[in-house]
């Protein structure tokens, strides 16, 4: 089959590799009909995530049709249309039973690698480094899905792929970010980052009762999209704009009730702080660039909530913890517990409450993927979301 492979930092190639096979009794093989490139894939592209290996198949946002099932898979059969959650969960450990699916004990074959780096292991993920399980990803024509009894969401209606594909990660991730923001009706919510996760966080914040959402970014196409959802936008790249001042001005001086950092470890910052972090990252004294996190802690109102869906990979420097303590804020974060949100969000799509395909800017073939990684990383061509049809002809 054809697959998008990580071949080193800033090096991605579409290559022909072996087809996946069933390896365990609860596996399924999925013929992929649509897959996407995620903002978090850019962290891999940029070499921010350790234990990627040359030859790994990328991709964790995919859907398709069941091709084959293992002998213990009882709920799926060949021909079923399914969306696959990017986190892999067994369904039977203490954490799965508590519905903290992203903390599953039994889905990471390389748990010892993650324990060595972090002191714990979370669930396995598709296409996201060996530490996170080393599972082959979904930017390919086929994928093997472990614990297929637990994860895949069956699509029984005839909704097109593009409306349901983002149930694989970014819509649930944006929704959980808004849920973690503990929004009360009438709240003002600030969202840093208007990429795909930020977009769904904005939409979900409104769905959960926010009176006002303030969206912060620097890319005009993303800010335009945020305004189309009803958010007020702040462009931090404009010379006379200070985000902290803007958030005070927009909240009568108290700050937003909740702040959502939908940017994560590669935050761009126009200020000196950004340079400071760049130097420290280069010197390996710090692994992440937390400029948004710092700002969000400073901005949130006293007693407010900070929600962090953005991916952080390791150590942070100069986080204003004194302000966090002094204001008595609540911080909620973590990898998305996908399995809690897929069905309820599918229902919202079915009822026509939201059409997640509005964020798609590019539709490409597998052969075009390597070039698009570069285009997106360099923030060219107004990319908001790239969807791949793995069976489309390169010439088309």
């Amino acid at each position, binding site marked *: *089959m054809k*697959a998008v*492979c990580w*071949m080193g930092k800033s090096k991605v*190639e579409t*290559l022909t*590799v*072996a*087809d*996946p*096979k069933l*390896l*365990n*009794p*609860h596996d399924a093989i999925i013929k992929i009909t649509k897959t996407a490139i995620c903002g978090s894939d850019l962290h891999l592209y940029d070499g921010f995530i350790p*234990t990627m*290996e*040359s*030859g*790994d*198949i990328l991709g964790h946002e995919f859907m398709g049709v069941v091709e084959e099932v293992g002998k*213990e898979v009882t709920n799926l059969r060949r021909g079923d249309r399914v969306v696959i959650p990017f986190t892999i969960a*067994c*369904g*039977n*450990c*203490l954490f799965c*039973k508590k519905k903290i699916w992203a903390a599953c*004990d*039994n*889905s*990471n*074959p*390389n*748990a*010892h*690698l993650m324990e060595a780096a972090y002191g714990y292991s979370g669930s*396995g993920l598709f296409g996201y480094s*060996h530490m996170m*399980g*080393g*599972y*082959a990803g979904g930017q390919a024509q086929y994928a*093997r899905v*472990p*614990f297929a009894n637990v994860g895949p969401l069956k699509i029984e209606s005839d909704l097109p792929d593009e409306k349901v594909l983002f149930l694989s990660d970014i819509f649930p991730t944006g929704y959980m970010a808004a849920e973690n923001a503990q929004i009360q009706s009438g709240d003002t919510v600030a969202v840093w980052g208007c990429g795909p996760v930020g977009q769904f966080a904005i939409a979900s914040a409104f769905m959960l009762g926010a009176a006002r959402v303030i969206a912060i970014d620097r890319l005009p196409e993303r800010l335009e999209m945020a305004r189309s959802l009803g958010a007020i936008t702040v462009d931090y790249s404009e010379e006379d704009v200070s985000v902290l001042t803007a958030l005070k001005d927009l909240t009568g001086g108290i700050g937003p009730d909740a702040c959502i950092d939908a940017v994560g470890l590669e935050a761009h910052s126009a200020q000196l702080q950004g340079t400071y972090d760049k130097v420290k990252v280069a010197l390996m004294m710090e692994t992440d660039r937390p400029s948004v996190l710092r700002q969000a802690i400073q901005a949130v109102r006293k007693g407010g909530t900070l929600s962090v869906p953005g991916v952080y990979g390791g150590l942070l420097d100069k986080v204003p913890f004194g302000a966090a303590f002094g204001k008595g804020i609540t911080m909620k974060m973590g990898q998305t517990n996908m399995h809690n949100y897929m069905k309820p969000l599918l229902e919202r799509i079915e009822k026509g409450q939201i059409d997640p395909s509005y964020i798609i800017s590019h539709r490409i073939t597998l052969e075009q993927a390597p070039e698009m990684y570069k285009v997106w990383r360099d923030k060219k061509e107004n990319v908001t979301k790239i969807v791949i049809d793995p069976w489309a002809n390169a010439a088309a």
Partner: protein
Amino acid sequence: MSSALKEKPYAEEVPNNSPASVILNGRYLPPPEDKEGRLWVRTSALIQASADDLYAMWRNVEAAPGWQEQITHVTVTGERTSHWVMQAGEKTIEWDSEILADEPGRRIAWRSIGGDSDNAGEVIFEEAPGGRGIVVTVLQAFHMGKLASAWETFTGRNPKQAVIENLRHFKALAETGEIPRTQGQPHEDRGFIGKIKASTYGEKVPTPSGSN
């Protein structure tokens, strides 16, 4: 014994039992330290299953190749004895093992009795507080003669890590009926460095089959 605290509506009795236990007379007991050529490893896992089922799974030594790394064959040779064969690549080591204590649903202790491995161990099955499952604790010792170091060089895993990984496999098998694996999935050729890394990550150690 009298207690200053009268109100403990959900408190449970503190266990006080065998050598692998982590609590002794109400105190936390740290694991034994490595010394005089003896390597100790203590590891535990919280498992959603009954103590009786977990005991039975552990006691069924002939099924051990299904969840213990690089064990290829176990033959029961007597009521309390068995013969173990371990293989890595072309090389094989063998030893006999004897069960010293056997308490259904609670505890098994064993030691090797001759052959290429000098090890002894105990596994205990205890109720976690609050009905959260069964805590399985393994305490194992390896005598670090030429045999144990041969084990490490030829298995590619330090024997301590192997005990930890085997308990992880045991838990996955008990909770889900399978052991998570990625060996055998597609990828592009890893190149020279990638192959070395796969070895150091322990990804070259074959994942046990998960079946009996």
